[in-house]
């Protein structure tokens, strides 16, 4: 047996599926490539990106660089922003609610009003960048212009030292992304209630002649109340644009000009065509699809996802277990326009349908 593969040759301590690992694993969606992967405490990197990085040649690949990422510094963490104090977690670091392209959102405490708030702080790397600061200010103003129960309100814009920040309503609950992950698939009634509330919020966004451009589960906060009622709020208007503003026509042929999240963006958003609120409805349709099936409609590398959103037919068969009107809702949202031009406006047909 010395030369053969015997039981001793197999080291079971490295068995990937061992029970301890199974208990701790969590399915995540990679923010860079959209692939779903299982993460454990020991292995939390996206394996697809790890392999693609090998193809790209490793360190020379842009996506492998950590230096460009938005990382709050020690200074960020220690700061007090006017009368807002960052809430610290058990480990003494500020509680981070989310982070995006422009900055980081922390949980904070309004020392004057004595209530929790969410504080978005511009990333330090943009402090000397005038256009970036302008974008940050515009984001705050856009968000502040919308007042609706289903949109998180922004109520204060400030500057501490050279750092801009804005305060917004602190929404209890969790992101829809986490909710889906936790539940795998949502009950149809809950999914539709969330869609109805987000649609109402989008109608308010639309009323201010804005397009959100980044509707997706991680930008929707949900909370379940006693009795099973659910409430949903749109957060992060970081990519919101005024209708007719030149930036609403961002062609993907311009490197880096595409704004949005490929897994949920509309075909017209990818194509660089003028977009309106119906583009947000498409993203909401993709979000509904994920709520019902537990998966995004199209998966793959960003380029592949873009192509699929523009060219590939939706696998409506995946919704076959749902009653027709419900799948119709997702169908109507995800209809490609143009030339169909039949995707509903949020304040009319879709609300009625729901």
């Amino acid at each position, binding site marked *: 047996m010395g030369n053969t593969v015997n039981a001793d040759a197999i080291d079971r301590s490295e068995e990937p*599926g061992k029970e301890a690992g199974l208990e701790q694993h969590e399915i995540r969606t990679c923010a860079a490539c959209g692939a779903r992967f299982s993460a454990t405490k020991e292995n939390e990197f996206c394996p*697809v990106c*790890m392999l693609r990085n*090998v193809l790209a040649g490793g360190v020379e690949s842009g996506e*492998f660089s950590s230096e460009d990422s938005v990382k709050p510094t020690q200074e960020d963490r220690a700061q007090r922003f006017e009368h807002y104090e960052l809430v610290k977690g058990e480990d003494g670091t500020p509680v981070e609610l989310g982070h995006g392209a422009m900055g980081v959102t922390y949980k904070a405490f309004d020392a004057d009003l004595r209530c929790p708030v969410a504080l978005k702080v511009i990333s330090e790397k943009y402090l000397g960048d005038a256009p970036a600061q302008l974008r940050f200010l515009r984001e705050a103003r856009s968000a502040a212009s919308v007042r609706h129960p289903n949109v998180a309100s922004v109520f204060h814009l400030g500057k501490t030292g050279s750092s801009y920040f804005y305060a917004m309503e602190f929404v209890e609950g969790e992101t829809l992304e986490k909710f889906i992950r936790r539940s795998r698939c949502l009950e149809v009634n809950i999914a539709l209630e969330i869609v109805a509330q987000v649609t109402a919020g989008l109608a308010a966004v639309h009323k201010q002649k804005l397009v959100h451009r980044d509707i997706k589960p991680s930008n929707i906060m949900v909370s379940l109340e006693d009795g099973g009622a659910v409430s949903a709020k749109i957060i992060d208007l970081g990519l919101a644009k005024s209708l007719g503003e030149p930036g609403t026509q961002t062609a993907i042929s311009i490197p880096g000009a595409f704004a949005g999240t490929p897994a949920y963006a509309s075909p017209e958003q990818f194509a660089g065509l003028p977009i309106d609120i119906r583009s947000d409805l498409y993203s909401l349709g993709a979000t509904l699809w994920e709520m019902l099936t537990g998966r995004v409609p199209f*998966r793959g590398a960003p380029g592949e996802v873009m192509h699929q959103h523009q060219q590939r037919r939706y696998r409506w068969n995946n919704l076959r*277990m749902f009653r027709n009107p419900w799948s119709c809702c997702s169908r109507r949202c995800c209809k490609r326009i143009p030339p169909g031009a039949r995707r509903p406006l949020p304040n009319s047909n879709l609300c009625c349908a729901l």
Partner: protein
Amino acid sequence: MKDDQSSLAGGVNRFQTTRWSVVLASARSEAPGYREALADLCKVYWYPLYAFIRHRGSSPEDAQDLVQGFFLHLIEYKTLSRVDRSKGKFRSFLLASLQNYLSNENDRARCLKRGGKAEFVYIDLEKAEDRFELEPVEELTPEKIFDARWAIALLGEAMNRLSREYMAQGKESTFRALRAFLDPINTKRLPSHEEVAAQLGVSVGSLKTQIHRLRKQYTATVREEISRTVSDSADVDMETHALCQALIAAEGWVIP
């Protein structure tokens, strides 16, 4: 850098003799040591085989026996020496061989039962359909899952190798501190360079160099691991693409 290079070079011999193409050639000529080389390759990839068998409904004990039996079958029946083509992937070969082996094993087991291959099964179509409707829409085949598990095993082996190499140089703590920087997309907030540099007692500039070096080593290690499983080094990129596709298709169902 010199140390790292010599460390990587130290593993070259092992990787020369345990490459799939070399194992195949050794098997044909019955050169001494090919069994150990095959064992070395199989040790990394036994789990995808085990899980494939489990997926087909075998109990853990049966799956374990079948994997061991399969490996013995590979060696005792000199399967490798009968492989005609010198080109091909170790992954494809192993899966096809396993499927053949399992088929033969099933036939053997069924022949032991009265009635041999006869099957009399009542299918309640209505019940079956009700059940089908409740099941998640699943397009994964056992073969696709096998490939994804293979990719995970490969990445895990690359990480383990790198860890062992750092450990051999007495740099275990360096590896532990820098490992987070291998994340290609920064899924979580990384510690600042200043923090890690202070922890390791080096300058920030030196730390950045070490991170750069680690990333290069990891990339080289993964490529090396993939190159072990293909017969031609020109196929490494193709195999990498195939493994990416398998992982995307698996949608996170394969646990590292």
